[in-house]
């Protein structure tokens, strides 16, 4: 009996051990030998409604290409980019992935994603992409490393009914916005002027505001700096900007907002606690669902004292891994997802600005809540696009620093001068180290 047991145990152990070893490395080689190609695709900005649309788009793709099967991985939003980096670093089998403006530099530096120049040269739809999409696709090294599926850009949401009640018009400048916020604030009734973003993600709000105060002096190609080469934090205008920022918090926003991130900020607006909100187009849908028609409206971003507003176009899209075994099929999928028809379906659900020139004639985007985007695009003298600073090594650390220092300034633990001095030093150092 003992002998039998031993011989039985051997294969079991071997199987278990093999399982352990293979569990650590990617296994699938795609394809099952019958001419069917299996693609693996991963998304990053996951949300249930969006995943559903992507699945529908994949289903139509598979219908049109019966020899290609696509497996979609949808990790939770919070950890998605980390998961993608880990998968890429260990060369796990993956063909198509969601690339974001904040991750593209990292992916390219580590040679994880493929240069799509050859594919885009052969693609007729590439020329139909609008200027912002082309710029974002070619953000790194002037080569298309991903095809955006949509663009993000901030605008102002406001409570039309409250504004009408007080006889106010939508603010055109940051000073207007501060004054409107003060007028609308009635803390005894738990009503505040502005949905302030003090928590995670506050960095973009602070820096954009300081850029607007620096006006036309900002170097839009390297937007942490002025045309003179000094940082945007080194000027008296920056001090004015940061002063307005603190006043906006103190006199026009809920005290609690120092810790508000995206969810609280939007919740504050739709629950009727705040009168103004600055957000991306993906907020249109939740606002529409919670607030009655006619009680709210959208407007272009407020401008700085010299009439300039700087905007960053955010983008995310689809790219291909550099080690994909099926680059042809992977590109086919990216091309399909980026076609005007599929992009129209996607952008309406995801609440992003479409990537094709042809979309600007679509009445859905020409009227209503999306209209400020068209207005801002048609007024390039006052609304100036800049290249985001996401390609600096210190960008990730910077976001944390400015969030934390921003809170310290609001709490009075750090003076405005000291904060600006510290940020100035940080970016002079970044510039020295190079991108």
């Amino acid at each position, binding site marked *: 009996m003992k002998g039998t047991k031993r011989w039985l145990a051997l294969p079991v152990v071997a199987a278990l051990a093999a399982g352990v070893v293979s569990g*650590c490395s990617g296994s699938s080689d795609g394809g099952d030998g019958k001419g069917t190609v299996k693609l693996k695709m991963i998304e990053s900005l996951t949300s249930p409604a969006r995943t559903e649309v992507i699945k529908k788009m994949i289903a139509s793709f598979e219908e049109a290409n019966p020899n290609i099967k696509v497996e979609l991985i949808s990790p939770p939003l919070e950890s998605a980019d980390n998961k993608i980096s880990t998968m890429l670093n260990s060369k796990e089998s993956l063909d198509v992935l969601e690339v974001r403006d904040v991750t593209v530099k990292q992916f390219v530096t580590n040679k994880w994603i493929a240069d799509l120049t050859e594919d885009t040269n052969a693609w007729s739809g590439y020329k139909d992409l609008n200027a912002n999409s082309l710029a974002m696709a070619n953000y790194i090294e002037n080569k298309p490393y991903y095809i955006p599926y949509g663009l993000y850009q901030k605008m102002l949401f406001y409570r039309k009914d409250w504004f009408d009640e007080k006889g106010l018009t939508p603010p055109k400048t940051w000073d207007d916005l501060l004054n409107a916020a003060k007028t609308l604030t009635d803390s005894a009734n738990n009503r505040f002027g502005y949905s302030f973003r003090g928590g995670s993600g506050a960095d973009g709000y602070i820096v954009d505001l300081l850029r607007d105060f620096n006006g036309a002096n900002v170097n839009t190609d390297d937007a942490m700096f002025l045309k003179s080469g000094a940082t945007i934090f080194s000027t008296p205008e920056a001090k004015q900007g940061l002063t307005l920022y603190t006043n906006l918090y103190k006199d026009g926003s809920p005290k609690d907002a120092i810790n508000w991130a995206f969810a609280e900020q939007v919740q504050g607006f739709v629950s009727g606690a705040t009168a103004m909100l600055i957000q991306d187009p993906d907020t249109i849908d939740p606002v529409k669902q919670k607030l009655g028609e006619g009680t709210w409206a959208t407007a272009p971003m407020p401008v700085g004292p010299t009439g300039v507003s700087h905007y960053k176009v955010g983008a995310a899209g689809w790219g291909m891994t550099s080690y994909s075994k099926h680059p042809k099929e992977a590109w086919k999928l990216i091309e399909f997802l980026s076609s005007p028809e599929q992009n129209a379906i996607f952008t309406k659900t995801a609440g992003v600005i479409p990537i094709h020139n042809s979309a600007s004639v679509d009445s859905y985007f020409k009227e209503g809540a999306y209209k400020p985007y068209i207005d801002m695009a048609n007024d390039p003298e006052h609304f100036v696009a800049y290249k985001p600073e996401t390609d600096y090594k210190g960008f990730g650390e910077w976001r944390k620093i400015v969030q934390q220092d921003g809170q310290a300034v609001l709490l009075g633990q750090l003076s405005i001068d000291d904060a600006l001095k510290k940020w100035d030093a940080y970016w002079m150092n970044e510039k020295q180290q190079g991108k």
Partner: protein
Amino acid sequence: MKLFRLNRTQTFIFLCLLPTILLVFGFTYYPIVKGIDVAFRNYSLFNLSDVRYIGMDNFKTVTSSAQFGTILKNTALWVSISLVLQFVIGFGVALLMRRSFRGRGVYQGFVFYSWALSGFLIGIIWRWLFNGQIGVVNDLLLKMGLISERIGFLSDPKWAMFSVIVANVWYGVAFFAIMLLAALQSVPSELYEAAEIDGAGSFGQLRHVTIPYIMPTIISTTALRVIWIFNFPDLIYGMTNGGPAGSTHILTTYMLDKIVFSGDYGQASAIGIICIAILVLFTTFYLFATRAGKAGDF
């Protein structure tokens, strides 16, 4: 070769153990060794083409941060206050549930329920409960007339650490209640009878019978709990993200920050090693110091 000359039984045992050994080495020891290695490298996700050794630089960077002092202080507060409150309340709850009463099973379910939730989830729940604008805690306090103005539990640095500790206490009470209840039920009833005959009241019984009897459980559970609370960034991360202005950062949330924001696994690993060092020191000291306590064991 002598080493490998095993008899049949030994071979069989060894083969049975092999999968576990492989698992433990693959998923416990390998990551530890790798983590130590990474701590001395320039290992940032931003650029993995240059992962050279940089000596103690990562340790210098993290310890010379202006926040590091606050972080250590917060870690000490977070661990000690959470532990004491969790233990005292958990012990009280266990004592209340020692004798059987109608519906005890259901009641136990409610008490133990918090232990089944994930830290991030608890963080998100408490984040909304403590919301300074629309949070239910403020609402209740206002309606009870205890406060006249809403408190920014998570936005005011004076309250933020208090708030995350409250949430942690709520979570951890269940653990002590479970463990201590099990220990309490093992105390032989003869001991209480004897103590009663000797004239001990209920406090005397608690002091001279219950606590000495369950002392080994108390020592091991508190030691475990210190390590777990120390290594529990989930809750703070979900509630305040270390804010406002870094006032609720502890070592492990600081470590997460290094990964999430900077992608700097080198510095994160350096913090991880500092954590291990502190915990090893603590555990050694604690177990040494409580040896005397064990002597009172029955």
